[in-house]
C-alpha cells in the first residue's frame, strides 16, 4: 500500500529537520508507543501497540535511517514484528522552504503488512493507516511548535 501527502509547518526548515531526526521527538508522534530504545543516531527500536479494530496489535518496530541529505531529505526502513503480522515500510520525506518562513514536507510511504493480520485487514487497512497518518502529522506539528518555542 502506498500513501503520500504534503504538510506545511509554521517553522523554519532546520527546526523541522531536527524534530524529524530526533528519535525522542519522533517517539512522541508515533501511535501507541510503550517503550523506545535508541541504538545510535541511525537505528531505533520501539515497542508499540497499534490500534487495530477493537484491540491493539503489539509490535516491536525497528527503524533505520538508510538515506540522508541534511536538511532536506531522509529515508527510513521500518520493520515491525508482531503476533500474526509483519510490517515492512519504507518512508521518506523531503523538506523545502515555503512562504512566510514555513517549511513544506512532502512525504511518502510504502507499507506492507504480511501474515494473517495483513490478510484479514486488507479491507480496513487503508482507512486505519489514513487515520494513523493524521495522528502522526498532528503530533508532529505539536512537536515542531514545541521546538519553535524552545
Amino acid at each position, binding site marked *: 500500500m502506498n500513501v503520500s501527502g504534503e504538510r506545511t509547518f509554521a517553522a523554519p526548515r532546520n527546526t523541522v529537520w531536527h524534530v524529524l531526526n530526533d528519535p525522542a521527538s519522533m517517539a512522541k508522534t508515533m501511535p501507541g508507543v510503550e517503550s523506545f530504545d535508541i541504538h545510535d543516531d541511525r537505528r531505533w527500536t520501539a515497542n508499540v501497540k497499534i490500534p487495530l479494530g477493537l484491540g491493539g496489535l503489539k509490535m516491536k518496530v525497528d527503524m533505520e535511517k538508510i538515506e540522508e541529505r541534511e536538511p532536506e531529505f531522509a529515508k527510513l526502513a521500518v520493520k515491525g*514484528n508482531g*503476533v*500474526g*503480522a509483519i510490517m515492512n515500510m519504507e518512508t521518506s520525506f523531503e523538506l523545502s522552504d515555503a512562504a512566510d518562513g514555513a517549511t513544506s514536507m512532502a512525504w511518502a510511504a510504502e507499507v506492507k503488512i*504480511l*501474515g*494473517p493480520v*495483513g*490478510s*484479514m485487514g486488507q479491507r480496513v487497512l487503508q482507512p486505519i493507516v489514513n487515520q494513523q497518518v493524521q495522528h502522526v502529522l498532528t503530533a508532529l506539528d505539536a512537536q515542531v511548535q514545541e521546538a519553535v518555542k524552545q
Partner: protein
Amino acid sequence: MSETTLAPAPVEVQKGWGGQSVKRKEDKRLLQGEGVFVDDVKRHGMGYLHFVRSPYAHAHITRIDVSAAEAIDGVYGTLTGEEVAALTDPFFQISSAPGANIKDYALAVGKVRYVGEPVVAVVAETRELARDASELVEVDYEALPALVDARRAQDSDAPVLHEDAGGNLMWTGLYSWGDFDAALAEADRVVKIPELHFHRFNSTPLECDGALVEYNRGVGQWTIHTNNQFPGFAAIMMGPAMRTGLDKLRFVTQDIGGGFGNKITSHPQLVVCCLLARKLNRPVQWTEWRTDFHLSMSHGNERWFHDTEVAVKDDGTLLGFRTKALDDAGAWLRYEPLGGVIWAQVTPGMYRWRHIELDFTQVATNKAPVSPNRGYSRMQHLWFTERVIDIVARELDLDPVDVRKRNYIRAEDMPYETPNGCVYDSGDYAATLDLALQLIGYDSLAGRRADAEARGKRLGVGIGSTLDSGTNNFGQSQLINPELQFSGNNEVATVKLDIFGEIVVTLGTTPQGQGHETTAAQVVADILSCSPDDVHVRAGHDSYWNSHAGFSGTYASQFAVTGLSAVKGATEMLAAEIKKLAGAVFGGVPAEALELADGGVRIKDNPDAFLPFMACGAIINANNAGLPEDLDVTLNCRYVYRPPFEVPDVERKFGNLTLTYAVQIHVAVVEVDPETGSYEIVDYAAVDDCGKRINPQIVEGQVMGATAQALGAAVHETYEYDEDGNLLTPNFYDYHVPHALDMPPLATGAIESPSPFTPLGTKGMGEGGGAGIHAICAAIQDATGQIVTDSHNPYQRVWELMQQ
C-alpha cells in the same frame, strides 16, 4: 426460492423401506440441540490449545523463545517444531521421488512455507488464555522470497520450498491411451486452447476441525475425539510418525458438522494434540478458528491446462485430446499427489473419445496445502472436458447440445470400458440431459433471449456435467508410486440382536450429515421385515469398540455402496442365524420353511409358530442351556464388504479405478448486464442419476448442497493470494459462501439407473458440484460470445471478458 420436480423413475422402485423418504433418525437430536460435536466433549482438567502461526509465506525460523508464555499463570505448556522433530518421524509420503523426499512434521521445523503454518502450540487453562499467551511466544524469522504462481515453480530462479526434493517439482506422470497422433491425422480440425485455469477454493463446513485428546499412561493409548472424517487414513499417517502401533490410537466421533474431504488431513494437528496430552499429562482440546481453517486447512486443488489440442471431425465427432495439466499442491503433500491420478477415474468425461494424452505435473508453492475437496480432482478434470466441448462447439459453430449428444457414451454401451480401463456401470446421459433441458424450459429460450435483449440484458444458457465416481480402488495409488502397498477398498458393519430383541447396528463410517443412521436402518428393516424405527444404528464411530477396517470413513462417494453393502451383508448373516436358531427351537425346521415377518421369525405354513426377535435375543444371550451343541449362532454378525477390484496395470496406467459412476447434469440460465458484467442466475436445473436411491430426500439434499457449492465457487468463492503469499480471502467477509437467499430458482430431477456392480444397485453420490461450476461458465460464454477460460467468474471478470 426452490422448487422440486421429480421425473418418473424409469425403473420399478423396489417395494419396502428402500426408496422411501423416511424421516431422518438423526434429526431429532440435531434439531433439539442434543448432537455431540467435538467441541461439546469436555474432560476434567483439560487444557486448550492454540497455534502460533507463521506470518511469512516463506522464511527460515532463526529463534523460538516460549519462556514468556510458559511463565504465565494458567499456561500448562508449549510444543515447538524442534520437539516434534525429536519425538516423531516425518509423515509417510504417498509420492514417489522427488515428492517422497520432503520431510513433513506436525509443526514447522526450521522453516515456514505458508502464511498460517503452525509453528508453536500453546496449551492453557482457558481458550482465551492460550490465545493471549501465544502472543508472548517470540519467533524470529529470516524472510525468503515466496513462490505464489505455480507456473513459475520450475523456473531456474524460483524460490525452492523443499531443498530435500531438489526443487519444487513434486510429482509428474505421462498418461497416454489410444493413439493421439493417429487421431490428429484422422481429424478434420484441431482445436487449440492455450490455457484453462481451475481456481483454488474450498468447501466450508459449519464446524471447523477439532479434537479432544486424552492419553492413558497405563496402557500407552491415546483416545482422540475428533471430527476427522477418514480415521483409517489418519491412523496410517499418525502411527508410524508417532512410533506407535495403530491400536494405541483410538478415534471417536459422534456428530460431525460437514466434511467435504477437507477433514481428511487434520493428522498433523492431531499429532500435536497427542504429543501435548502426553507431555502435559492432561487432556488437550483444540478447536480451529474459522480464519485458521481458511488459512491453513486443505484447500481444493488449483489446476491449469496448457497447450490443449482437440482432434475433432467437422460434424463435431470428438476423437481425442492432448493436454498438460499443472497442479498446485501448496506447501505440503498431505494427501497429494493422489490428485495426480484421481482425475483418471473419469478420464474421458462422458464422451466416447478414445485417444487421450495428459501430462500431469504437480508442484509445491508457498500456499496452504491442498487435499480432497468435494469432487476431488475429478471436478477439475471434468470442468476441463466440459470446457473443451463448449469451446469446440463454438469453434465449429455447432450447438453444444448436439455436440454432447453426438459424443455421449450411450446407454446401450453400458457397461462401458474407458480408454484407461475404468468401467462406467450404467446411465443414460442423453436422457438425463433432456430432462435437465426440459426443467429449464429449453424450448422457449429463443423468446426469453429476445425478452432479455429488450431489457438491455444478454441471456445465456450453459450445460455442465459431472461423473461422480464412487468407491475407490486404492490400487490407483500405485500409479503414483508403484511401491505403495494399497489396493481395493473395504467397509465394515455389525448387526446384532440384543437380549430384549433390540436390533443394533454399528457402522465403520464417520457420517458428517449424510443420514447414515437412517439409510442403514432402511436397509436392515427391509431384510429383517421390521420398521426402521425398530433399528438402532449407533451414532458415530469408535475405532476401539466399533467395527472398523483399513479404509473405514466417509469420503469419496461410497457409503451407499461400501457402507450399505456391509450393512446388507451383516444383516443377511443375522437373518440366516435367526432362521437357524428358530429352526432349532421349532425342532429341526429347515431355513427354507421359515420367514422373517412382523418383528420375528415364523413357519411359512404355520404363522402361529412365531418367535419374536425378543425371544431370539433372549435365548441366545441369556437362556441358552439345552441348545444343540453344534448350533453356530451368535446373533452378532460382522460383515466386511470388499468391492470386486483388481490391481491396476502400473505400466499401462490401466485398470478399473472406481466401482460406480453417478451422473449429474446441470443447466443454468443467466442474464448478464453488459454495462457492469453482473449477472443473475434466472433458472437452474440439476438432474442426478445415482442408481437406486435408498432415501430420495437425502439424495435431493445432497444435490442441492452440491449445487450451492458450485454456484459459490463459480461466482464468489476463491482463495486469492497476493505476491507475498498473503491469503486475501481468509474469512467470510471476503470469502462469500452462498446462503439461502443467494440460491436461484432450483428445479431438481432424478433418473435411476441401478448399478449392476453393487449389491443394492446403489451408487455413491453427493459430489456433483462441478457440473454447476461449468454450467455457469458455459452460460456466460453463451451470453457474452467470449470464450471463458477460468472456472471462477465474478462480475468484474465477466465485464473484462466483454471488453475483449
